[in-house]
């Protein structure tokens, strides 16, 4: 994903958070801080300074954490990232999502346009 894509992801997340409660936004900020400092003991660096593999390992540990508060915190962050990412029309197109208000008729038109017939 290019720079513009990331900006788009961030903007969508910000927009989603705009109408959420201040308490929820505070919790998220705190969680991001915790996440950033958590790897310091094991890796000697903050999360933001880690490579992709080490980051994934930290996140996996968070996801399986025995503490519910950390698991649900991770789940919340993950949900926001997925919202930002799959909220973008480019991402939906890339995975082949094609729902259209015009339903069957619209699908027949686009499929005929593509010259293939995968209809039921």
């Amino acid at each position: 994903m290019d720079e513009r894509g990331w900006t788009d992801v961030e903007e969508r997340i910000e927009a989603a958070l705009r109408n959420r409660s201040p308490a929820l936004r505070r919790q998220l900020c705190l969680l991001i801080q915790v996440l950033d400092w958590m790897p310091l003991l094991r890796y000697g660096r903050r999360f933001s300074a880690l490579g992709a593999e080490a980051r994934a390992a930290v996140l996996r540990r968070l996801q399986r954490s025995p503490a519910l508060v950390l698991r649900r915190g991770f789940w919340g962050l993950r949900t926001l990232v997925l919202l930002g990412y799959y909220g973008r029309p480019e991402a939906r197109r890339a995975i082949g999502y094609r729902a259209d208000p015009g339903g069957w008729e619209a699908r027949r038109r686009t499929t005929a346009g593509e010259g293939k017939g995968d209809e039921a």
Partner: protein
Amino acid sequence: MIERSYDVVIVGSGAGGGTAAVGLVPLVEQGHRVLVLEQGPRLADEEFTGEELEMAEALYADAGGFLTADGTMTLAFGQVYGGSTAVYTGTSLIAGPHVIEAWDIPGLTHTDVTERSRQYMDQNNVHLLEPELINENNSLFQKGCEAAGYEAHQFPINVKGCLGSSLCNLGCPNGAKQGTDRVQLPAAELCGVEVVTRAEVLRLEERAAMVRVSEKPPSEKGAPSEWEPGEYRVSARMVVLAGGAVGSPALLLRSGFGEHLPRLGERFTCHPALILVAEHPRPITNDVGHPKSFFVDRADEEGYVLETCMYFPFVTAKSLVGFGEEHSRFMAAFPRLQMILVLACDRATPGNRVTIDGAGRPVVHYRFTDEVVRALALGTRASARIFFAAGALRVHAPLASPTTLGAGEADRIDERVRPEHFTPGTVSVSAAHLMGGCAMGRSERDSVTDGWGRVHGIPWLRVADSSLFPDSLHINPYLTIMALADRTAEAIRLDAGELLAAGAEAGGGETEVAGGGPAATA
């Protein structure tokens, strides 16, 4: 504070509120004034675009992200003209006799629920979708059930002119789904019932609602409110609560009714559900066609119901456990995905209840019982069998570790999918069938209302929504909610002479309600 005065005020315009509104038209015809207050907006037809995030923000409470108190389950409910009926799928089932009988509510019989449900099935054009309009996401479920030995039934649905956009849960872009927003509310408005949107009832007082009418934010969908923005005191001879299983108990609690009604907020159930996804070797029609045609009912035997379903990219991504390569692989296979919803038939359980926080906002406490987790595991096993029998290559099973089951593991499903793998906070559980909170029963010792939606000891206050359920229904609830709201409306019509004439004094103390007709008043 602006003062207004009505004979009957209905709070909420969903399955219950819409039914109550149309059920009280005879009072309007007698010259009484009936008002519906809805906190959500009223959208124009062209504003239903089917865009996932945009529509979720416009139609759902918390944009569809309302979480239970410990953050382990998402509750989906509408906050718009038509309430959750604007976003439901429209599957229309009549409650089973054993469920209604087990509720054991004086005066509530299965025959009565059936007759009233049928009336709304007629109004809402309920029928079976024509076979040629059923997509492969649904037909593969049926085929898989046949091969794996499960009995699939076809859902009757309430559509008229359905184009098969698959977007029901984002609000129908074609006005085809026959929710209260399309049928009962417009009919009631045509007959003189007033509906005011963007009007949140903050608190109830003795025969009055304190209401805040909000300005339409410039970037939001929907029309401005029918009333000028501001704070209102709406006096009413009768108030009918139809704010849903979260909204109604929360409103009563923040209005201070908890002391008189000790059972307020209790008996909350919701059919906790898992969205399961499987990948086929070829593209199937999944994001075109009506999303929900079949179900398997194993409620009595194993505590779960399976339904076909189809979700949108973000909700699908959220439902898959984990992140990284495996997650992306499933998402990238979107045109080849088949989906099944596993619903656990939960039971009213002490502790699972609606309360309010310091600011009066609803808080839903919900703990997954062992029975619910077991039902989710059994339902996942059954779904995996159905997926593989239908030809799927891989199944994402949140209650397996690791979560992906390959077709080669089809004979190890029971071993791989286990209740112990259910980790709250890691597995995405959601619920859209919210029930209870102002449960029906016999007296304030065990419930909030009688079998006709009359709040114990408070003759001017009635309930007409899903919060009336004393326990979960085990099937999709909207028709039963309409049937119960229809009973509430009937009781109001019967009691109206006395209550609307003078505004009778509020009753007090404990009232034991015998069975019988709606005239057996509190």
